[in-house]
């Protein structure tokens, strides 16, 4: 008889969650960030509804500072798979010239990502939004329900979460309120990589090591991805063999020096590493509870 592996169980759980949303929410959307977790989530969604098309659109909140290779990957993947994608950019932020170099990581992330996301959710009136967050990523994420309630102001109240028993999810909401739904809650970073490997899921090549132009700033290796990056006097981009453990806005995402050019090598490096995955992210360092605070304000 078929004996399910750990990954097959995780897969079934995620599919169950997605079908639940499709069957009970009026206007769901799947947040697509182009990263590895989003790629796994999207792959699972295609499994969940096969042979039907996805019963909801995807949405990317584009801060205009993503790595160029991410956008290329997005365009190609969406076209090849005939998916329905909404790209939302916070035009107010663009008009004000908000960016990570001129305004710092906190303001940039808040305006272009958090405010941009809230704008988009309001604009389209989505009542449920899938996100690819995992509980093993960070302390406040470890506390969040799979179906996570948001007030009409998109706020999360971590001190007053709904009970969530077995695989029965309470997604009843009033007008204006919404749900953030996390189908990958119980996956670990290792599970994600292993699944990508087993299922041959396409990912952005930035995850694999290659010679790339970087400068070292505040202990972080920043890739010079375009000419919007102002170089300090004496700063000279250096070609280094690097890769990225997470992907986001290029000025805020630190590279790691690496020689891992295949998936098994990435996994090997990840297992032997001594630092956590979010360590390369500038936005997580602002303060200890910064993720919780951002989440309360509406960040994913």
């Amino acid at each position, binding site marked *: 008889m078929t004996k399910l592996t750990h990954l097959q169980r995780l897969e079934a759980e995620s599919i*169950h969650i997605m079908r639940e949303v499709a069957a009970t929410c009026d206007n769901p959307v799947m947040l697509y960030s182009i990263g590895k977790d989003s790629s796994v989530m999207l792959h699972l969604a295609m*499994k969940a509804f096969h042979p039907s098309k996805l019963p909801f659109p995807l949405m990317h909140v584009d801060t205009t500072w993503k790595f160029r290779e991410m956008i290329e990957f997005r365009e190609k993947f969406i076209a090849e798979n005939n998916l329905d994608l909404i790209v939302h950019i916070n035009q107010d932020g663009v008009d004000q010239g908000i960016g990570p170099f001129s305004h710092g990581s906190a303001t940039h992330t808040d305006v272009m990502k958090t405010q941009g996301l809230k704008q988009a959710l309001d604009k389209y009136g989505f009542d449920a939004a899938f996100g690819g967050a995992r*509980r*093993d990523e960070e302390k406040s994420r470890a506390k969040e329900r799979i179906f996570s309630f948001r007030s009409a102001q998109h706020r999360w109240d*971590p001190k007053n*979460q709904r009970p969530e*028993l077995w695989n029965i999810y309470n997604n009843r909401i009033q007008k204006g309120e919404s749900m953030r739904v996390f189908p990958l809650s119980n996956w670990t970073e290792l599970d994600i990589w292993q699944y990508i490997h*087993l299922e041959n899921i396409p990912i952005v090549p930035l995850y694999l090591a290659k010679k790339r132009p970087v400068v070292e700033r505040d202990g972080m290796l920043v890739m010079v991805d375009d000419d919007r990056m102002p170089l300090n006097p004496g700063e000279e981009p250096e070609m280094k063999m690097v890769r990225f453990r997470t992907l986001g806005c290029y000025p805020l995402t630190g590279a790691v020096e690496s020689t891992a050019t295949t998936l098994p090598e990435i996994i090997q490096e990840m297992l032997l590493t001594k*630092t956590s995955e979010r360590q390369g992210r500038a936005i997580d360092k602002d303060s200890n509870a910064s993720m*919780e605070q951002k989440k309360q304000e509406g960040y994913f």
Partner: protein
Amino acid sequence: MSDSKNDKSYEVAQSDQIASDIEGYLKDQEHKSFLRFITCGSVDDGKSTLIGRLLYDSKLIFEDQLATLENDSKKVGTQGGDMDFALLVDGLAAEREQGITIDVAYRFFSTDKRKFIVADTPGHEQYTRNMATGASSADVAVLLIDARKGILTQTRRHSYIVNLLGIRHAVVAINKMDLVDYAQDAYETIEKDYRSFAENLNFSSITFVPLSALKGDNIIDSGDNMDWYEGPTLMSLLETIDVSNQKEENPFSMLVQWVNRPDLDFRGFSGTIASGTIKPGDKIIALPSAKTSTVKSIVTYDGELDEAVADQAVTITLEDEIDISRGDVISEINRRPETTDQFQAQIIWMHDQPMLPGRPYLIKTTNKTVTGKVTSLKYKVNVNSLEHEAG
């Protein structure tokens, strides 16, 4: 940090294999068994400390996290500047500020034998519903008891609730043994008390371990302080406890979650198999309509299956066009579940407003939400004494 006590042989073996044979390591990972457990018990029994210790001793704390922990221990720790492992798990600002656990936190770790998800649950009475949330997805409950205090109200309350939610295996961890000079009789008194209390519960296994989460005794290593104890350490118990439930051998049933209709030619029923197995050609009955048909195919993105088993998420097509919608049950024709609109149940009431018999409520029965009423309340269980009280 790098004291030899933490250098467990299996970790060394694991990282050797990772370095030399990553493909082989990944294959092993794929087939590793998996356990979900919770830690529960009263406030200050050391639940968060225990999980912090398990993660720390299994070397699952990254350097950047460790640096944060050292920093936080000095700033807000409760161990006089020593490592406060509870800070690894208490992730909300309000929790760290007040030094309590408000909501359940999920942590992930693995050894060479098993992968684990542990839910650290709050001990305060006002957060009992969060404890229940954590318990509902677990197979094993690790119930912590402070060796100095013995069984408390919360121990009884938590034991009763986790058992009612379906947990069949209890591990009673008698913690803070260091504070009773590792005395055997302290341990034995609590064991005896708990066994007599648990006679009224429905656990299929109860195991006892004396330990000190703070000092590390009997967590991964036995240590030298309790030579009188010959049982397994907590970790080796968790690695070996058998929680298989033979779900696959029960009659087939699947709750229809979503009707899959891409076009006029395809109509499938998507859902997760609740129990049993199914094959093309099997006769089924749809409930509550009691219409019957035969399974035509089991459709997945990866191709059609010859067989599907409990816990798999699939889409089933049938030979006949019968009316089935979300919330219906597809089951084995000869061993079908009973259908009824009245039943008796034990309810854990979580809302601040009291339950009122006669008042209409929405009842969510897995995939269906219906209105219903509680006709009468037969008795209330006093979760502290387990006595029945008038409704």
